[in-house]
């Protein structure tokens, strides 16, 4: 294990805990900024997509990974963000303000769910959020004056200071900036008291409230923040799909978001990014590799989702804790080499008991 000698409290507070962090994250940022030089338009668009999904996942991660509330309806916030943003910019609102306002709108819608949701747990909350997503889906269909209903609505290109943005590169930078800033803000929040309060509630509500944390208020605030971030992702996604229709934001998208953060590793910011990149990359690679397979296999209808599912099945069976869990194990292995003990992460058997008694 890397031992860090701490000489100042700030060392714990800083985002980068040691020189290694500073180096790697700077390298990551530089690579991200230089990406248009390094990859072609296809991959650039793909990375934009990964980033948008990562941002949406980050939003979901806050409620599900940090506060421990399961949401099966987060696509609804993508929808609210996307529609609100499109509506605003169609009505001549400046791009950045519109995006922020859309995020805020999504947050406010989130509040409507959050208040009753703060009293629910587990499966009931999941079902409630699903019902909510269905309501929002119905709203996007029936509030035609705003959403265009089933006919859908075109999304004007983003325009910054009167300059309209069409190219993949510019769009990528907008997405990158949005994701970067949101991530920094979330990281800030996580090292502040509120972030700790969320973790506290996830692990033990009883103990959190005995320490003076208002469980309901923290959950509601977390839901609000989560909805804001997902709404922001929704605003960006509107530009990604360029034409909104209610079908985009269905249950499948919600499930995909959940899938991403679980695969990435619950309860970490890394997890949202790992998940989005892994799942996204998996889709890309399957569709690319299919072109190299012999026609009899590669042209098989339904091959892609099948392979996708199969890989996830294997992944979850061998690594139920997600990519981040695997990453920690690898790191632990190298740091403790040659003293690594195989059983460090071994789980004992667990036994279920009915929760009907609760």
């Amino acid at each position: 294990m890397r031992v860090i000698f701490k000489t100042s409290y700030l060392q714990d507070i800083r985002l980068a805990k040691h020189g290694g962090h500073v180096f790697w994250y700077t390298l990551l940022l530089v690579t991200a900024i230089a990406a248009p030089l390094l990859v072609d338009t296809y991959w650039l668009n793909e990375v934009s997509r990964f980033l948008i999904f990562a941002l949406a996942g980050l939003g979901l991660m806050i409620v599900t990974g940090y506060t421990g509330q399961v949401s099966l309806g987060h696509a609804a916030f993508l929808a609210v963000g996307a529609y609100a943003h499109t509506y605003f910019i169609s009505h001549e609102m400046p791009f950045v303000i519109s995006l922020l306002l859309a995020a805020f709108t999504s947050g406010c819608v989130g509040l409507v769910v959050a208040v009753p949701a703060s009293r629910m747990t587990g499966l009931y909350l999941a079902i409630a959020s699903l019902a909510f997503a269905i309501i929002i889906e119905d709203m996007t269909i029936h509030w035609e004056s705003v959403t265009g209903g089933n006919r859908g609505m075109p999304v004007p290109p983003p325009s910054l200071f009167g300059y309209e943005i069409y190219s993949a590169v510019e769009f990528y930078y907008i997405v990158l900036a949005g994701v970067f800033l949101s991530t920094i803000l979330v990281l800030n929040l996580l090292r502040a008291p509120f972030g700790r309060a969320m973790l506290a509630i996830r692990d033990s509500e009883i103990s959190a409230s005995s320490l003076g944390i208002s469980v309901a208020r923290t959950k509601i605030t977390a839901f609000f923040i989560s909805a804001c971030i997902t709404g922001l992702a929704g605003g960006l996604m509107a530009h990604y799909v360029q034409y909104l229709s209610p079908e985009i934001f269905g249950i499948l998208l919600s499930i995909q978001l959940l899938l991403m953060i679980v695969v990435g590793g619950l309860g970490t910011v890394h997890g949202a990014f790992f998940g989005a990149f892994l799942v996204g990359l998996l889709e890309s690679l399957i569709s690319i590799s299919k072109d190299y397979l012999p026609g009899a296999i590669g042209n098989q209808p339904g091959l892609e989702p099948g392979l996708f599912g199969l890989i996830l099945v294997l992944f979850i069976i061998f690594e139920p804790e997600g990519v981040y869990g695997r990453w920690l194990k690898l790191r632990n292995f190298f740091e403790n080499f040659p003293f690594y003990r195989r059983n460090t992460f071994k789980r004992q058997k667990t036994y279920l008991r009915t929760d009907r008694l609760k």
Partner: protein
Amino acid sequence: MSETVLRVKNLETFYGPVMAIRGVTLEVGKGQIVTILGSNGAGKTTILKTISGAIEPQKGSVEFDGEAITGMEPDKIARAGIRHVPEGREVFPFLTVRENLEVGAFSEPDRKQVQHQMDRVFDFFPDLSRLYNHEAVYLSGGQQQMLAIGRALMVQPRLMLLDEPSLGLSPLLVGQIFEIIERLNRELDMAILIVEQNASMALKVAQFGYVLEVGRIVMEGAQQKLLDSKDIQEFYLGKKEESARGKRRWKQRKTWR
């Protein structure tokens, strides 16, 4: 000690990276009542769970009637003749008393035999026959404990593991339960391994005892030897010599002012 029913050798069990049991060796003789004393979290429950297969041991072996049962599935171990009455009276809350007992006899396909065993359980616990058709969730703590023991008696186990049978029970009930434990041992010649915080009770019925601290056995001996031990008296029986503690204040810890 004549014949050995259970032999646990050098058992080590982990919870994640934490070693909960650190090399425990113990034996239970045929028809003997043995107790494991120790404070909360010392690992007593873990030992029982490891014996009954609910937890996988890292190292060491468990032998029952001379056959290794280490790492076997818990239901196989139960079938072999070890019945575990877990801590906290884990009855099936939404099954009736009768159904609970029938579940206990799952491995017995002969209906007549089941009925016979059930009658015997009612003989030991007359209370239960009265509650025949009640769902277990509505039973009081003491009745649930009796049901849990009764369920284990539905087959004739050769070894019963009892985890904190007195937990949360009134002293009167504790007395009753221990009387029945003695009766079971005497009348059915059943070996019993009891884990108890209520050391005075446990030592009343047990012929042999082990003392467990932080996953290690620190003392073992026959009933009388343990009862005579000063440490046992002080730490597990609540008796102590006046002011022994004040004098033993071994360190002035005043680093923080």
